[in-house]
Protein backbone atom coordinates (compact mmCIF):
# COMPACT_ATOMS: atom_id res chain seq x y z
CA UNK A 1 0.00 0.00 0.00
CA UNK A 2 2.75 2.41 0.96
CA UNK A 3 4.74 1.27 -2.08
CA UNK A 4 1.81 2.06 -4.36
CA UNK A 5 1.41 5.48 -2.75
CA UNK A 6 5.10 6.26 -3.19
CA UNK A 7 4.94 5.33 -6.85
CA UNK A 8 1.83 7.43 -7.27
CA UNK A 9 3.65 10.25 -5.50
CA UNK A 10 6.49 10.06 -8.02
CA UNK A 11 3.99 10.12 -10.87
CA UNK A 12 2.42 13.27 -9.52
CA UNK A 13 5.82 14.80 -8.89
CA UNK A 14 6.56 14.59 -12.60
CA UNK A 15 3.29 16.26 -13.36
CA UNK A 16 3.66 19.16 -10.98
CA UNK A 17 2.95 21.51 -13.84
CA UNK A 18 -0.26 20.09 -15.20
CA UNK A 19 -3.39 18.86 -13.61
CA UNK A 20 -5.03 17.17 -16.55
CA UNK A 21 -5.84 13.48 -16.69
CA UNK A 22 -3.49 11.58 -18.99
CA UNK A 23 -5.19 11.09 -22.30
CA UNK A 24 -5.15 7.62 -23.77
CA UNK A 25 -2.62 6.30 -21.27
CA UNK A 26 0.26 8.42 -22.56
CA UNK A 27 2.34 10.31 -20.06
CA UNK A 28 2.06 14.06 -20.49
CA UNK A 29 5.32 15.61 -19.33
CA UNK A 30 6.04 19.30 -19.29
CA UNK A 31 8.18 18.96 -22.38
CA UNK A 32 5.43 17.72 -24.67
CA UNK A 33 3.14 20.14 -26.45
CA UNK A 34 -0.09 20.60 -24.57
CA UNK A 35 -3.06 18.52 -25.64
CA UNK A 36 -5.31 19.96 -28.26
CA UNK A 37 -8.96 20.63 -28.13
CA UNK A 38 -11.47 21.64 -25.55
CA UNK A 39 -9.91 20.06 -22.51
CA UNK A 40 -7.00 22.47 -22.67
CA UNK A 41 -9.13 24.88 -20.70
CA UNK A 42 -8.86 22.47 -17.80
CA UNK A 43 -5.08 22.42 -17.59
CA UNK A 44 -3.16 24.76 -15.37
CA UNK A 45 -0.70 25.67 -18.11
CA UNK A 46 -3.46 27.40 -20.06
CA UNK A 47 -3.92 29.93 -17.28
CA UNK A 48 -0.32 30.43 -16.22
CA UNK A 49 0.30 33.46 -18.44
CA UNK A 50 -2.38 35.31 -16.50
CA UNK A 51 -0.59 34.84 -13.22
CA UNK A 52 2.80 36.00 -14.40
CA UNK A 53 3.08 38.87 -11.93
CA UNK A 54 5.35 39.70 -9.04
CA UNK A 55 4.37 41.18 -5.71
CA UNK A 56 5.59 44.59 -6.81
CA UNK A 57 3.40 44.47 -9.94
CA UNK A 58 0.32 43.70 -7.89
CA UNK A 59 1.03 46.48 -5.43
CA UNK A 60 1.54 48.90 -8.33
CA UNK A 61 -1.79 47.96 -9.85
CA UNK A 62 -3.57 48.25 -6.54
CA UNK A 63 -2.20 51.75 -6.10
CA UNK A 64 -3.28 52.62 -9.66
CA UNK A 65 -6.83 51.63 -8.84
CA UNK A 66 -6.95 54.15 -6.03
CA UNK A 67 -6.35 57.06 -8.43
CA UNK A 68 -9.29 56.84 -10.81
CA UNK A 69 -8.60 60.06 -12.68
CA UNK A 70 -5.32 58.98 -14.19
CA UNK A 71 -6.84 56.62 -16.72
CA UNK A 72 -3.56 54.82 -17.32
CA UNK A 73 -4.52 51.44 -15.93
CA UNK A 74 -5.38 49.84 -19.27
CA UNK A 75 -2.10 50.91 -20.79
CA UNK A 76 -0.14 49.45 -17.95
CA UNK A 77 -1.92 46.13 -18.03
CA UNK A 78 -2.40 45.81 -21.79
CA UNK A 79 0.48 43.42 -22.27
CA UNK A 80 0.23 41.56 -19.01
CA UNK A 81 -3.31 41.42 -17.64
CA UNK A 82 -3.47 39.27 -14.57
CA UNK A 83 -6.22 37.27 -12.97
CA UNK A 84 -4.54 36.98 -9.58
CA UNK A 85 -5.60 40.48 -8.56
CA UNK A 86 -9.29 40.23 -9.50
CA UNK A 87 -9.74 36.80 -7.93
CA UNK A 88 -8.09 37.56 -4.61
CA UNK A 89 -9.56 41.06 -4.35
CA UNK A 90 -13.02 39.52 -4.76
CA UNK A 91 -12.29 36.82 -2.22
CA UNK A 92 -10.92 39.34 0.29
CA UNK A 93 -13.96 41.54 -0.32
CA UNK A 94 -16.27 38.63 0.44
CA UNK A 95 -14.51 38.00 3.72
CA UNK A 96 -14.37 41.67 4.67
CA UNK A 97 -18.01 42.24 3.70
CA UNK A 98 -19.21 39.21 5.65
CA UNK A 99 -17.16 40.04 8.74
CA UNK A 100 -17.98 43.75 8.79
CA UNK A 101 -21.64 43.05 8.16
CA UNK A 102 -21.67 40.53 10.99
CA UNK A 103 -19.82 42.91 13.30
CA UNK A 104 -22.22 45.76 12.56
CA UNK A 105 -25.33 43.69 13.33
CA UNK A 106 -23.61 42.32 16.45
CA UNK A 107 -22.91 45.80 17.79
CA UNK A 108 -26.39 47.01 16.93
CA UNK A 109 -28.00 44.09 18.75
CA UNK A 110 -25.75 44.34 21.78
CA UNK A 111 -26.43 48.05 22.11
CA UNK A 112 -30.13 47.33 22.32
CA UNK A 113 -29.56 44.27 24.50
CA UNK A 114 -31.28 41.98 22.06
CA UNK A 115 -30.60 38.40 21.03
CA UNK A 116 -28.15 37.96 18.21
CA UNK A 117 -27.39 34.96 16.02
CA UNK A 118 -24.72 34.60 13.42
CA UNK A 119 -26.17 34.85 9.96
CA UNK A 120 -24.20 32.51 7.74
CA UNK A 121 -26.15 33.72 4.72
CA UNK A 122 -24.05 36.88 4.67
CA UNK A 123 -21.07 34.86 3.47
CA UNK A 124 -22.91 33.05 0.73
CA UNK A 125 -24.77 36.17 -0.38
CA UNK A 126 -21.66 38.33 -0.65
CA UNK A 127 -19.83 35.51 -2.46
CA UNK A 128 -22.61 35.37 -5.01
CA UNK A 129 -22.70 39.12 -5.49
CA UNK A 130 -18.99 39.73 -5.89
CA UNK A 131 -18.01 36.72 -7.92
CA UNK A 132 -21.12 37.13 -10.04
CA UNK A 133 -20.54 40.81 -10.68
CA UNK A 134 -16.90 40.40 -11.69
CA UNK A 135 -17.70 37.44 -13.93
CA UNK A 136 -20.94 38.44 -15.60
CA UNK A 137 -20.53 42.17 -16.21
CA UNK A 138 -17.19 41.95 -18.05
CA UNK A 139 -18.59 39.08 -20.15
CA UNK A 140 -21.59 41.15 -21.17
CA UNK A 141 -19.38 44.16 -21.80
CA UNK A 142 -17.09 42.05 -23.94
CA UNK A 143 -20.00 40.98 -26.10
CA UNK A 144 -21.34 44.53 -26.35
CA UNK A 145 -17.95 45.93 -27.28
CA UNK A 146 -17.49 43.27 -29.92
CA UNK A 147 -20.85 44.20 -31.35
CA UNK A 148 -19.81 47.83 -31.58
CA UNK A 149 -16.52 46.75 -33.16
CA UNK A 150 -14.22 48.05 -30.44
CA UNK A 151 -13.04 44.70 -29.20
CA UNK A 152 -11.22 44.53 -25.91
CA UNK A 153 -9.57 41.42 -24.59
CA UNK A 154 -11.77 39.52 -22.15
CA UNK A 155 -8.99 39.11 -19.60
CA UNK A 156 -8.28 42.85 -19.70
CA UNK A 157 -11.91 43.47 -18.80
CA UNK A 158 -11.80 40.97 -15.93
CA UNK A 159 -8.61 42.63 -14.74
CA UNK A 160 -10.13 46.11 -14.90
CA UNK A 161 -13.29 45.16 -13.04
CA UNK A 162 -11.42 43.14 -10.46
CA UNK A 163 -9.11 45.99 -9.52
CA UNK A 164 -11.97 48.49 -9.56
CA UNK A 165 -13.45 46.64 -6.59
CA UNK A 166 -10.33 47.18 -4.50
CA UNK A 167 -11.46 50.59 -3.23
CA UNK A 168 -14.46 48.91 -1.56
CA UNK A 169 -12.22 47.17 0.96
CA UNK A 170 -11.16 50.31 2.86
CA UNK A 171 -14.66 51.71 2.34
CA UNK A 172 -16.23 48.68 4.04
CA UNK A 173 -13.74 48.89 6.89
CA UNK A 174 -14.60 52.55 7.42
CA UNK A 175 -18.32 51.81 7.38
CA UNK A 176 -18.14 50.27 10.83
CA UNK A 177 -18.75 53.74 12.23
CA UNK A 178 -22.40 53.71 13.30
CA UNK A 179 -23.35 57.06 11.78
CA UNK A 180 -25.86 56.59 9.01
CA UNK A 181 -24.93 59.73 7.09
CA UNK A 182 -21.24 58.85 7.31
CA UNK A 183 -21.93 55.42 5.84
CA UNK A 184 -23.82 56.91 2.93
CA UNK A 185 -21.00 59.34 2.25
CA UNK A 186 -18.43 56.55 2.30
CA UNK A 187 -20.54 54.38 0.02
CA UNK A 188 -21.03 57.30 -2.36
CA UNK A 189 -17.37 58.22 -2.50
CA UNK A 190 -16.21 54.65 -2.97
CA UNK A 191 -18.84 53.97 -5.60
CA UNK A 192 -17.93 57.15 -7.42
CA UNK A 193 -14.20 56.37 -7.37
CA UNK A 194 -14.74 52.83 -8.53
CA UNK A 195 -17.14 53.85 -11.29
CA UNK A 196 -14.85 56.63 -12.52
CA UNK A 197 -11.96 54.20 -12.60
CA UNK A 198 -13.83 51.79 -14.85
CA UNK A 199 -15.38 54.50 -16.99
CA UNK A 200 -12.22 56.52 -17.67
CA UNK A 201 -10.11 53.50 -18.41
CA UNK A 202 -12.67 52.18 -20.81
CA UNK A 203 -13.30 55.53 -22.43
CA UNK A 204 -9.67 55.78 -23.53
CA UNK A 205 -10.06 52.45 -25.22
CA UNK A 206 -13.39 52.73 -26.95
CA UNK A 207 -13.18 56.33 -28.09
CA UNK A 208 -12.34 54.90 -31.43
CA UNK A 209 -15.57 52.97 -31.58
CA UNK A 210 -17.67 55.84 -32.74
CA UNK A 211 -20.77 57.53 -31.56
CA UNK A 212 -22.07 55.01 -29.03
CA UNK A 213 -19.18 55.21 -26.56
CA UNK A 214 -20.83 57.74 -24.32
CA UNK A 215 -23.83 55.50 -23.75
CA UNK A 216 -21.70 52.50 -22.90
CA UNK A 217 -19.46 54.44 -20.54
CA UNK A 218 -22.40 56.03 -18.74
CA UNK A 219 -24.04 52.63 -18.48
CA UNK A 220 -21.14 50.98 -16.74
CA UNK A 221 -20.64 54.03 -14.53
CA UNK A 222 -24.18 53.76 -13.25
CA UNK A 223 -23.88 50.01 -12.84
CA UNK A 224 -20.87 50.36 -10.56
CA UNK A 225 -22.66 53.02 -8.52
CA UNK A 226 -25.62 50.68 -8.21
CA UNK A 227 -23.32 47.99 -6.81
CA UNK A 228 -22.09 50.37 -4.13
CA UNK A 229 -25.66 51.27 -3.17
CA UNK A 230 -26.75 47.62 -3.03
CA UNK A 231 -23.80 46.81 -0.79
CA UNK A 232 -24.58 49.64 1.57
CA UNK A 233 -28.26 48.73 1.74
CA UNK A 234 -27.84 45.02 2.33
CA UNK A 235 -24.86 44.96 4.63
CA UNK A 236 -25.54 47.99 6.75
CA UNK A 237 -29.25 48.21 7.09
CA UNK A 238 -29.82 46.84 10.52
CA UNK A 239 -33.30 46.20 11.77
CA UNK A 240 -33.17 45.46 15.44
Amino acid at each position, binding site marked *: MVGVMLVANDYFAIE*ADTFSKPAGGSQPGSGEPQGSGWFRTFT*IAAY*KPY*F*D*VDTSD*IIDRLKESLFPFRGTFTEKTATNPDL*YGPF*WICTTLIFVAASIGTFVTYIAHKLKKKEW*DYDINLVTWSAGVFYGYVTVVPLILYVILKYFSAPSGLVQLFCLYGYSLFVFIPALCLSVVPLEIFRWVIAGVAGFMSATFVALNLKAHINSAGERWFLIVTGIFLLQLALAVVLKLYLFTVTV
Partner: protein
Amino acid sequence: MALRDWDLWGPFFFIVFLGLTLSWSASVKKSEVFAVAFALLAAGAVILTLNVLLLGGHIVFFQSLSLLGYCLFPLDVGALICMMENNVILKMIVVCVTLAWSSWAAYPFMSSAVNLSRKALALYPVFLMYVSVGFLTIAID
Protein backbone atom coordinates in the same frame (compact mmCIF):
# COMPACT_ATOMS: atom_id res chain seq x y z
CA MET B 1 11.04 13.87 4.63
CA ALA B 2 7.60 13.16 5.97
CA LEU B 3 5.98 15.12 3.15
CA ARG B 4 6.68 12.38 0.64
CA ASP B 5 4.21 10.10 2.37
CA TRP B 6 1.24 12.36 1.91
CA ASP B 7 -2.22 11.14 2.73
CA LEU B 8 -5.63 12.71 2.71
CA TRP B 9 -7.21 10.90 5.67
CA GLY B 10 -5.70 13.32 8.20
CA PRO B 11 -6.85 16.45 6.40
CA PHE B 12 -10.28 14.94 5.84
CA PHE B 13 -10.63 14.18 9.52
CA PHE B 14 -9.48 17.64 10.58
CA ILE B 15 -11.79 19.42 8.17
CA VAL B 16 -14.80 17.36 9.20
CA PHE B 17 -13.94 17.82 12.88
CA LEU B 18 -13.67 21.57 12.47
CA GLY B 19 -16.97 21.68 10.60
CA LEU B 20 -18.65 19.60 13.31
CA THR B 21 -17.25 21.73 16.13
CA LEU B 22 -18.41 24.94 14.48
CA SER B 23 -21.76 23.35 13.78
CA TRP B 24 -22.19 22.27 17.41
CA SER B 25 -21.27 25.75 18.62
CA ALA B 26 -23.88 27.37 16.43
CA SER B 27 -27.25 27.89 18.02
CA VAL B 28 -29.16 28.19 14.75
CA LYS B 29 -28.70 26.96 11.17
CA LYS B 30 -26.35 24.22 12.23
CA SER B 31 -26.29 22.36 8.95
CA GLU B 32 -25.63 25.53 6.97
CA VAL B 33 -22.70 26.37 9.20
CA PHE B 34 -21.22 22.92 8.67
CA ALA B 35 -21.72 23.17 4.93
CA VAL B 36 -20.08 26.57 4.66
CA ALA B 37 -17.17 25.58 6.89
CA PHE B 38 -16.54 22.34 5.02
CA ALA B 39 -16.80 23.99 1.61
CA LEU B 40 -14.58 26.87 2.67
CA LEU B 41 -11.85 24.59 3.96
CA ALA B 42 -11.92 21.97 1.23
CA ALA B 43 -12.24 24.39 -1.66
CA GLY B 44 -9.79 26.71 0.06
CA ALA B 45 -7.08 24.06 0.21
CA VAL B 46 -7.53 23.23 -3.48
CA ILE B 47 -7.59 26.88 -4.52
CA LEU B 48 -4.50 27.70 -2.46
CA THR B 49 -2.60 24.88 -4.12
CA LEU B 50 -3.75 25.95 -7.57
CA ASN B 51 -2.71 29.49 -6.73
CA VAL B 52 0.86 28.40 -6.02
CA LEU B 53 0.98 26.28 -9.16
CA LEU B 54 -0.32 29.14 -11.29
CA LEU B 55 2.25 31.54 -9.89
CA GLY B 56 4.89 29.23 -11.24
CA GLY B 57 5.68 27.49 -7.99
CA HIS B 58 6.99 23.99 -7.65
CA ILE B 59 4.87 21.85 -5.42
CA VAL B 60 3.11 18.58 -5.78
CA PHE B 61 -0.65 19.00 -5.74
CA PHE B 62 -1.59 16.34 -3.19
CA GLN B 63 1.38 17.04 -0.95
CA SER B 64 0.17 20.58 -0.64
CA LEU B 65 -3.42 19.53 0.07
CA SER B 66 -2.12 17.16 2.71
CA LEU B 67 0.02 19.79 4.37
CA LEU B 68 -2.69 22.45 4.39
CA GLY B 69 -5.08 19.95 5.93
CA TYR B 70 -2.72 18.91 8.69
CA CYS B 71 -1.95 22.56 9.48
CA LEU B 72 -5.58 22.93 10.48
CA PHE B 73 -4.92 21.03 13.69
CA PRO B 74 -4.28 24.15 15.86
CA LEU B 75 -7.49 25.70 14.57
CA ASP B 76 -9.34 22.49 15.50
CA VAL B 77 -8.06 22.78 19.05
CA GLY B 78 -9.00 26.46 19.10
CA ALA B 79 -12.51 25.75 17.87
CA LEU B 80 -12.94 23.05 20.51
CA ILE B 81 -11.90 25.46 23.26
CA CYS B 82 -14.17 28.17 21.88
CA MET B 83 -17.08 25.77 21.85
CA MET B 84 -16.78 25.31 25.59
CA GLU B 85 -16.07 28.95 26.39
CA ASN B 86 -18.42 31.87 26.13
CA ASN B 87 -16.24 34.86 26.88
CA VAL B 88 -15.60 36.81 23.67
CA ILE B 89 -12.23 38.20 24.75
CA LEU B 90 -10.94 34.75 25.66
CA LYS B 91 -12.18 33.38 22.34
CA MET B 92 -10.33 36.11 20.49
CA ILE B 93 -7.09 35.37 22.31
CA VAL B 94 -7.40 31.63 21.72
CA VAL B 95 -8.18 32.14 18.03
CA CYS B 96 -5.27 34.53 17.56
CA VAL B 97 -2.83 32.10 19.16
CA THR B 98 -4.01 29.09 17.15
CA LEU B 99 -4.11 31.15 13.98
CA ALA B 100 -0.50 32.21 14.48
CA TRP B 101 0.44 28.60 15.15
CA SER B 102 -1.26 27.36 11.97
CA SER B 103 0.31 30.06 9.83
CA TRP B 104 3.72 29.38 11.35
CA ALA B 105 3.30 25.72 10.42
CA ALA B 106 2.28 26.36 6.84
CA TYR B 107 4.74 29.21 6.18
CA PRO B 108 7.96 27.26 5.42
CA PHE B 109 6.34 24.97 2.90
CA MET B 110 4.47 27.68 1.02
CA SER B 111 7.25 30.23 0.94
CA SER B 112 9.85 27.81 -0.33
CA ALA B 113 7.63 26.72 -3.20
CA VAL B 114 7.60 29.98 -5.15
CA ASN B 115 9.97 32.58 -6.45
CA LEU B 116 11.20 35.08 -3.88
CA SER B 117 9.52 37.97 -5.68
CA ARG B 118 6.15 36.25 -5.45
CA LYS B 119 6.36 34.93 -1.92
CA ALA B 120 3.84 37.39 -0.55
CA LEU B 121 1.41 36.53 -3.35
CA ALA B 122 1.53 32.87 -2.35
CA LEU B 123 1.33 33.46 1.40
CA TYR B 124 -1.44 36.05 1.52
CA PRO B 125 -4.24 33.62 0.54
CA VAL B 126 -3.12 31.14 3.21
CA PHE B 127 -3.31 33.89 5.78
CA LEU B 128 -6.70 34.98 4.44
CA MET B 129 -8.15 31.48 4.73
CA TYR B 130 -6.94 30.97 8.30
CA VAL B 131 -8.18 34.41 9.34
CA SER B 132 -11.62 33.74 7.88
CA VAL B 133 -11.82 30.39 9.69
CA GLY B 134 -10.71 32.13 12.89
CA PHE B 135 -13.38 34.76 12.40
CA LEU B 136 -16.01 32.09 11.86
CA THR B 137 -14.91 30.47 15.13
CA ILE B 138 -15.26 33.70 17.10
CA ALA B 139 -18.52 34.78 15.52
CA ILE B 140 -20.41 31.54 16.02
CA ASP B 141 -21.91 31.37 19.47
